[in-house]
């Protein structure tokens, strides 16, 4: 026996038996489980509707909100433009910093490759870990104003048990 697929029924069909599709109505008449489920869904929908009606009678004090809205609407346009431009400046500065980091990071990768193209390397914006002859070596890359790189190779002691 196929039960009623309540999740597929239009919500309005819950309002009255007459609104159920004919086959669902016939099934509900014979199936106690579906009758119980239908009743539970009706009760839930009625409860939510009652909550909505009650909530719509909840008094809301609009005086304080209106004062705040009026204050914000009354801000001189020049001040709003000034604030917007400050936000834009901050966003531009952040974007610039991100672009610079990406540029330096890419450059450090290229430097590592130039130092030893066949050497496997793990790089971050500030340092490169190079694996050479089973000896991990930390290479710190820096860029001067003229983008002249300084490469320092520092062997890392490997501890074996």
């Amino acid at each position: 026996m196929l039960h009623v697929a309540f999740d597929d029924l239009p919500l309005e069909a819950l309002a009255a038996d007459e609104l159920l599709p004919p086959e669902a109505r016939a099934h509900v008449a014979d199936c106690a489980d579906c009758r119980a489920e239908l009743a539970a869904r009706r009760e839930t929908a009625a409860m939510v509707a009652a909550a909505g009606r009650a909530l719509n009678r909840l008094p809301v004090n609009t005086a304080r909100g209106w004062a705040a809205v009026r204050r914000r609407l009354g801000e001189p346009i020049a001040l709003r433009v000034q604030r917007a431009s400050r936000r834009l400046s901050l966003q531009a500065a952040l974007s610039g910093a991100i672009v610079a980091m990406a540029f330096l990071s890419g450059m450090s990768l290229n430097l590592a490759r130039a130092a030893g193209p066949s050497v496997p390397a793990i790089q971050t914006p500030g340092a490169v870990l190079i694996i050479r002859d089973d000896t991990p070596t930390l290479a710190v890359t820096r860029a001067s104003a003229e983008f002249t790189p300084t490469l320092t190779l520092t062997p890392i002691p490997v501890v074996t048990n």
Partner: protein
Amino acid sequence: MDDWLTAATEGDPEAVEALYRRHAPAVFRLAASLLNDADDADEVTQDTFVYALRNLRRFDPARSAFQTWLFTIAISRCRNKRRRKWLDTVPLSRWLRSEPRREGQRLRIVEEWLTARGVRRDLWAAIQGLTPSLREALVLRFVGGLTYAEIGEAVGCGGRAAESRVRTAIGALRRQLAPQAESAPDWLEALAEARS
């Protein structure tokens, strides 16, 4: 378009205030139901009206009712607010004074209000437990009183999808609320038997 709206669009300050006073309670109730935080709901209501009143000329009465337009703006602000809540912040002054969080405090009044009017106490919490998209559709239908087509307009989906979300929300609430009444006594009986 009603007279107040026409006058407000032309910059009549009295009409602007009348629009606020007429529609702000509905926007606040919507935001409160979606965010479960009265301070956030206040903020969303203000943001919604500041945006709407500055952009009244963008409102197209042929496309939607004014309240539906306001709800669309409010829904967007509520989503932003929810996203920011992932990075919870506490004002330094409050932290230094070790004041308890005020979050949700005022909305207990809403729960009391509903309970006093015969609504089950756990219904509010169950609605808050729904996923945001189901909660939006349910609240717009039963609190906002919107049609499915209007809900679709407000949340950015079709009318049929909006109806489906409301139906799914009712199903989820039924599953969440009904088992307490049906299975709890059996469970309690079994516990009582085991203890005796």
